């Protein structure tokens, strides 16, 4: 935990006001947290809990009513900090009349990149987010997931050190969201810091090191995912397939030692795993139905 602090907020509060300056909503109340370099930090919370508001405050898109933000050692309103930041907005707010290549080229120019660098990076990124086939189509023809993908590519154009993702997996198909999660893990391996907000708990659990749970604009929980989820009262053992007799023996051993067997079962994979496998298989063998392995039906390897 003793890394370099990249994001620091102190008593951050935000009240949305209307045109006349009257209070409308208290979206955030005295939020304090730190994010250290190299971690994946998740902001969780129900709809309207203030996740997006927090990200916008970090980026200087909104100004805090109270409190302070320090990001990469600079105040949130400093433009220079943006050199090292990548941001994927809640909905990809891009220019719909540009195509994928033009989009990345445009944002590349905003980082003052030379033409060769822009070309090279946008080619790589388009490939990485799987849009090579659609790179010349205007974004207004894109589906939601495709827009999300180009949005992510746009956020990575400057090889940022700090990446802020607002619901990165929303609108993505399971394959896309798996890719997204893989990408986040990979970014972490490269030593980058990622802050993401989401209400898809499984996603958060898969990739985040630490999480904060917001509700009604207030911080409810803050800590390491592992620590938060570890149930100290239960031990889990996984083995290869055991026959019923062996299971009985194990049960006897456990009872002798005063433990109680809670559950013996064949693990089912989760739906996500199944979906991902199916789609991958169908890509490998187009035109065929994928038959998942069941006890009575072992597919040829």
């Amino acid at each position, binding site marked *: 935990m003793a890394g370099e602090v990249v994001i620091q907020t102190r008593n951050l509060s935000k009240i949305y006001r209307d045109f006349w300056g009257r209070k409308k909503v208290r979206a955030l109340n005295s939020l304090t947290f730190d994010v250290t370099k190299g971690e994946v930090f998740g902001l969780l919370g129900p709809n309207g809990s203030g996740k997006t508001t927090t990200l916008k405050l970090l980026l200087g898109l909104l100004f805090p009513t109270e409190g302070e933000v320090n990001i990469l050692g600079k105040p949130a309103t400093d433009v220079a900090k943006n050199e090292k930041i990548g941001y994927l907005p809640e909905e990809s707010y*891009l220019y719909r009349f540009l195509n994928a290549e033009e989009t990345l080229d445009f944002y590349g120019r905003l980082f003052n990149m030379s033409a060769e660098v822009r070309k090279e990076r946008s080619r790589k990124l388009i490939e990485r987010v799987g849009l090579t086939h659609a790179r010349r189509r205007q974004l207004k023809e894109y589906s939601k997931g495709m827009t999300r993908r180009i949005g992510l590519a746009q956020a990575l154009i400057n090889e940022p050190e700090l990446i802020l993702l607002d619901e990165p997996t929303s609108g993505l198909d399971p394959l896309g969201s798996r890719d997204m999660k893989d990408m986040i893990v990979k970014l972490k391996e490269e030593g980058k810091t990622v802050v993401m907000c989401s209400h898809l708990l499984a996603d958060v659990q898969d990739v985040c090191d630490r999480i904060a749970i917001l509700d009604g604009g207030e911080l409810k929980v803050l800590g390491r995912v592992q620590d938060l989820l570890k149930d100290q009262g239960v031990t889990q053992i996984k083995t290869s397939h055991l026959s019923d007799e062996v299971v009985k023996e194990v049960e006897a051993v456990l009872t002798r030692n005063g433990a109680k067997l809670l559950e013996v079962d064949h693990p089912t994979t989760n739906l996500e795993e199944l979906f991902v496998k199916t789609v991958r298989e169908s890509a490998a063998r187009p035109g065929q139905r994928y038959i998942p392995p069941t006890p009575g039906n072992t597919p040829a390897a």
Partner: protein
Amino acid sequence: MSLSFNPIPFDLAAGFAHWLIVMAIVLILSGISLTLMSLAAGGITGPLQVAWHVKDGIADLLGTSPRRVVALTMLTFREAFRRKTLWVFAVFGVLFLFAGWFMSDVTADPALQVKAYVSFVLRTISWLILPVVMLLACWGLPEDIRARSLHTVVTKPVRRHEIVLGRILGFVLIGTFVLSVMGAVGYVWVIRQLPASMQSHLTARVPIYGDIRFVTREGLEKNDEGKYIRDGINVGDESMFRSFVEGNSKARAIWEFKDIHPERLAEPGKLVLESTFQSFRTHKGNMEAGLLCQLTLVNEAKNVRVPLKTFNVKEFHRNVYDVAEMNPVLTDVDGKPANLEKDLLHDGKLRVEAACLSGGQLLGMARPDLFIRLPSRTFAASYFKSIFSIGLMMVTVIVLGVVAGCFVKGPVATLLTAFVVIVGRLSHTFMKELTSGYYRDSNFQMQGRGILDSLIRIPTHLTPGIEMGDGFIYRAIQAIDNVELSGLWAIQHLFPDLRTFDTTEYVANAFDVPWSASLLPSLAVTVGYCIPWIIVGYFSLKIRELEAK
């Protein structure tokens, strides 16, 4: 046939000084009000924040990246194209398809025909292009904010003024493109529409104007105060553009020309004068022939006076007077031969006097009514210079629109810009009168000085001519009124004087569009307005949250 206004050369240095003064006043006023407002809003830290923003602004300016500005410019340009905003072309084309029917034969007078066609084309172009660029400019940024696509842009290292500049340049690029096409189509249309016999009237005369003064019927050149007399007789014409010279008397109008060097003239020694005097008859006289007029060339330094052969004024026509052709030999009043170059031109100076020889009749003259003609330029040159002025006006409107879009939504920005444009075009003179207390008629100088002054004068029935005294109270009133008048004066300057950009009259009347009396002031107005407005746009984008409200 002649200009209805006075083309005065623009003094760049004086204009710049004027600009600096206005900017200083605006800066001081906005500085004071910002400090007060920030004190009220944030207490002691308020003004500190203002100072911090200013410092930040300078840092941002130094960090400007041309590449980013170009990227934003191209984005704006592409957006307009891909969204098919340029349907205005179609309107333009249709207009010209049908215009030909209605305008085919306005008159048999070629000069009037040219005037009708040229003003139609130039007016149409400016009235079509201005609303289009205004709408584009006013809606661009607010739409970007509403769709939040600006969020993705401002989270890149983009400075806010680069966004403002990029928008402005993008719209200017589109406008320039549209304007070039329209200009070219309009040019071809005029050329093709005009019968071959009238083509020679498509030209651009190049005049040299002199300064005008008058001599009274008694032969007096100066008034009681020892100053030159600037007006002749007023025959009751309320526009007072022309002053009148009485026939058969010592009354004359005098033009002093400068910078007349033989090599500038059409051919060395060939002096061509052109005049458009107005006739005012107190009795019918001979209606067939125009009033008789005599021009006299004078070199005051050498005391040489050369009366020229008289001519009959053809009213509402260009009276071209080729000195050498009309007077094969020039002789001075004593009958001695005189040479134009040696005896009359002195240091490039030449004086021309005009007198009316028809007794009991008057000739009306104004500064642009007599000029020396230099070799003409082509019609194309003056036409495209006029298109360039329209382009400058377009730039000003774009800047106003984009900046308005930085702090209000599209519809409000449009209203605001339209308001400024209308005020700038129609009521600039009125505002000037209001703030300077000076009425256009030089004989009638208003004495009113300000609100407090008037508040006292009205109930006490004190006429403006009478001083209120010089007690302490009066001086205090004067001081307060001066502050508030200079504020008003500065506000008046927030509205660009858009009439500067209208060069139609030059081209339509077959004059060249002058650089120093027209293009230079237009450029100055454009630059002078754009700089402060862009700064306003930058700060309004910077201090606001980019959430649609």
